[in-house]
């Protein structure tokens, strides 16, 4: 059947326990088509694709490839059927070379041995054919995200993918890198490959896709042609109502400098320099945004400020105190609050109950302990108050933090950090993974804190968030502050600076 669609999903339902991630979803992909999949966080996009790739088994529904019903029990089966996937979180082996990553699972052999030469040659060949520049012998861990992305795509193509799934491939790319990627995608499309493209960025979707399918709360809402669709119409489809994310805030009235970094440099866990000579000031009553692409030293910079990472050089002052070599406890004590970028890793002890989590900073203060003995009653009383104040739902003081939903966990972190009456707030990805309502709450609180005269350093990968909240924006690239820009600057200008356009050096092309 020549005119059968390349791929068809019929009535796919996938449950995780009581949660229905996909409910009776139909989906169709034609040959030589770029089909975008849209939906809010948690709408079930990745789940649907994981079902297609054999990583999840559907509870109901069937999959047809070229009109034939297929069962995909494993990813090797999916690969065998010509399905390739570039995952939201990269699936590469960092210590191995590009070529090794590429051939993993379908290795060329010479006798019993791996034929590395052939592997490298084929990598080079493929890379030239599709215009995806990579060095076969480079170790993946030494590559930037853009290059890793290219390796992922090459890997899928190497295995002969006829259907290519890209799960949020542009999330970590700059505007320019994204445009480069789209050129590749159009080439692939011309060769007859069907492409499923997931993104939250409506403009990209309109730019590159032929058709668009929207998921909402696990269900398919509609499939529409890109022609004729607008960002607004798509947003309405996704959320189910008109949305306009706008943060209301007064004009900035900055006061004295509360956080001041001068010439700070630090290394990453492997000992490579990642923070280079960073100097910045954050004053009372302002929100300073730190914009940058993921893995450009933001995490390490925050760790250095918090005393979690030893700087090689430079000084860090908080409200006039030098905390450079003081360690986390003293840094916190000097009046810094830290909304950690990964709440599960740094923000919360999931096995602790909420009362304990809310006391993580202050368990030693006389309010909660005497002579080294804790007083659980006081901890619970305080927790009860905070949980109410910060509208944490689904949790009592005795509830284990791990049993809350992500948004409510984040509220717990925020409650603890803001309640500490800080001078400086470091908010790293404060709304990552939150729903619209929760995002509004967090944004409102941050603005309130700013208005209360605190200095806020906002680190985020979401340009939208940075632009709507910040009073000033600093751009970080390869560990250096490369520019200070007003938040009103255009997306393109930001993109330029964030990719090193300001210095004229490209990282990934090296």
């Amino acid at each position, binding site marked *: 059947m020549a005119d059968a669609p390349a791929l068809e999903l019929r009535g796919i339902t996938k449950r995780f326990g009581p949660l229905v991630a996909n409910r009776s979803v139909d989906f169709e992909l034609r040959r030589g088509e770029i089909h975008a999949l849209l939906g809010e966080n948690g709408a079930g996009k990745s789940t649907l694709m994981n079902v297609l790739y054999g990583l999840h088994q559907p509870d109901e529904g069937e999959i047809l490839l070229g009109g034939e019903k297929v069962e995909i029990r494993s990813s*090797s089966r999916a690969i*065998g059927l010509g399905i390739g*996937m570039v995952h939201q979180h990269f699936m590469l082996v960092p*210590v191995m070379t590009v070529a*090794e990553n590429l051939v*993993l*699972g379908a290795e060329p052999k010479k006798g*019993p*041995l*791996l034929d590395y030469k052939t592997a490298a040659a084929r990598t080079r060949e493929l890379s030239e054919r599709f215009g995806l520049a990579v060095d076969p012998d480079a170790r993946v861990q030494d590559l930037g995200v853009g290059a890793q992305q290219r390796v992922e795509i090459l890997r899928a193509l190497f295995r002969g993918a006829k259907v290519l799934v890209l799960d949020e491939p542009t999330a970590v790319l700059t505007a320019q890198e994204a445009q480069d990627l789209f050129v590749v995608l159009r080439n692939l499309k011309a060769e007859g490959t069907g492409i499923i493209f997931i993104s939250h960025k409506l403009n990209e979707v309109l730019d590159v896709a032929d058709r668009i399918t929207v998921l909402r709360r696990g269900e398919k809402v509609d499939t529409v042609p890109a022609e004729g669709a607008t960002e607004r119409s798509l947003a309405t489809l996704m959320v189910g109502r008109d949305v306009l994310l706008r943060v209301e805030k007064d004009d900035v009235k900055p006061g004295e400098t509360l956080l001041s970094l001068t010439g700070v440099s630090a290394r990453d866990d492997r000992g490579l320099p990642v923070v280079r000579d960073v100097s910045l000031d954050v004053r009372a009553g302002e929100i300073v945004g730190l914009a940058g692409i993921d893995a450009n030293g933001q995490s390490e910079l925050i760790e250095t400020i918090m005393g979690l990472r030893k700087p090689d050089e430079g000084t860090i002052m908080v409200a006039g105190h030098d905390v450079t070599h003081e360690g986390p406890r003293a840094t916190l004590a000097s009046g810094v609050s830290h909304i950690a970028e990964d709440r599960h890793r740094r923000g919360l002890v999931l096995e602790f109950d909420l009362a304990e989590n809310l006391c993580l900073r202050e368990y030693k203060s006389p309010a909660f302990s005497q002579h080294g003995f804790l007083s659980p009653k006081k901890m619970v009383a305080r927790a009860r108050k905070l949980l109410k104040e910060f509208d944490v739902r689904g949790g009592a003081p005795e509830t284990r933090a791990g049993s809350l939903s992500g948004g409510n966990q984040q509220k717990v972190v925020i409650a603890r950090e803001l309640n500490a009456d800080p001078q400086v707030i470091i908010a790293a990805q404060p709304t990552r993974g939150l729903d619209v309502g929760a995002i509004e709450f967090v944004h409102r609180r941050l603005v309130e804190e700013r208005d209360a005269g605190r200095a806020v350093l906002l680190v985020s990968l979401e340009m939208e968030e940075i632009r709507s909240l910040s009073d000033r924006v600093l751009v970080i690239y390869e560990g250096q502050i490369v520019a200070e820009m007003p938040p009103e600057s255009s997306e393109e200008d930001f993109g330029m600076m964030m990719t090193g356009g300001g210095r004229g050096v490209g990282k990934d092309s090296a």
Partner: protein
Amino acid sequence: MTPAKQVGWAGVALGFLAFFIAVPPIMVRSPVVIALVALAGVTAGVLAVRGGERRLGWGAVVAGLIGIAGGYAATQSGETNLKSVVVWGALLASTLRYATPLTFGALGGLFSERSGVINIALEGMMLIGAFFGAWGADVTGSWVLGIVIAIAAGAVFAALHALFAITFRADQIVSGTALNLLAVGITGYLYVQIYGTDGTPDDLPRVPDVNLPIKSVPFFGDVFGSLNLLVWLALAMVLVTWVVVFRTAWGLRLRSAGENPLAAETAGLSVVRTRYLAVMVSGGLAALGGAFLSIGFLHTFSQNMTAGRGFIALAALIFGRWRPGTALLATLLFGFGSALAQALPVFSPSGAVLFQALPYVLTLIAVTGLIGRSIPPLALGRPLPKS
């Protein structure tokens, strides 16, 4: 290598040289010379520390101090005593024998850990190998079959580790500890049940020695002239392991399972199968180490006869940074410590007992000091996420 690193390693080498020249065959008798050489090592260490190679530098300082202490002690002791302790040929032959079970164990551990499964159960797997090697050789009357049965038993026992660690996603250290206890129980039970109070028969088939026609070659003849077949096999396995793990497609898959199992999974590989196989290979190799003890070297089985060798093998693996060549060096270091401990009492019979701690102290220093933090496979100890 950065210059600081070179200086650091030179310092380490000088430290050991200070000791080396004090003992036969060179036997420098002047403490001053020894001290000068060792001090040069210490100085190099300090320089390396200054140059940023802190750990290596301190390692060189320690090596220098050991060099002074050991070298000085050597110059102060009688030449006859020295000559009777430091017979390099005998010492190294003994080192190889001590190292062999450890090498098998460490290589076994390498397979398992490279695939992402912590193998603290090496001790138990060795013990299983020791018993079933002896039992197999006894019932079949053939050492070859004894070895085969030992390997099979080790692999089956390791499959249990795989079942719990991989399929049931148990904490791998805890389940490994359990297997060690279980191995003591199983082998002890069977031993008592089968052999009662008589012990294994005295005509247990033996793995033969390989007699090379180099007996008369000085030094080499003493060391390599008549080593057990399994000693040679252990050395060969180091090479084989390296080729398999780093030069074959399966090795690539194995390492990818240990570094990023999800990546391997999405490349269409079965991480579960890879890990099972790796853990079972691990069991087979460790069991071979046990079989060396029972039918290669001692020709008997006794309860709990591995006596902690599995743990040392694990330490050697870590010290050797999960690489076959360096792991071999680590086992040789430990073997040398044991051999030396056995020879040293000539100097001080009352301190003889204390010398027994030498190999463990050496391992402790080695694991913590000199070489620095070794970075394990990224996914080591992590079960595959559930889908």
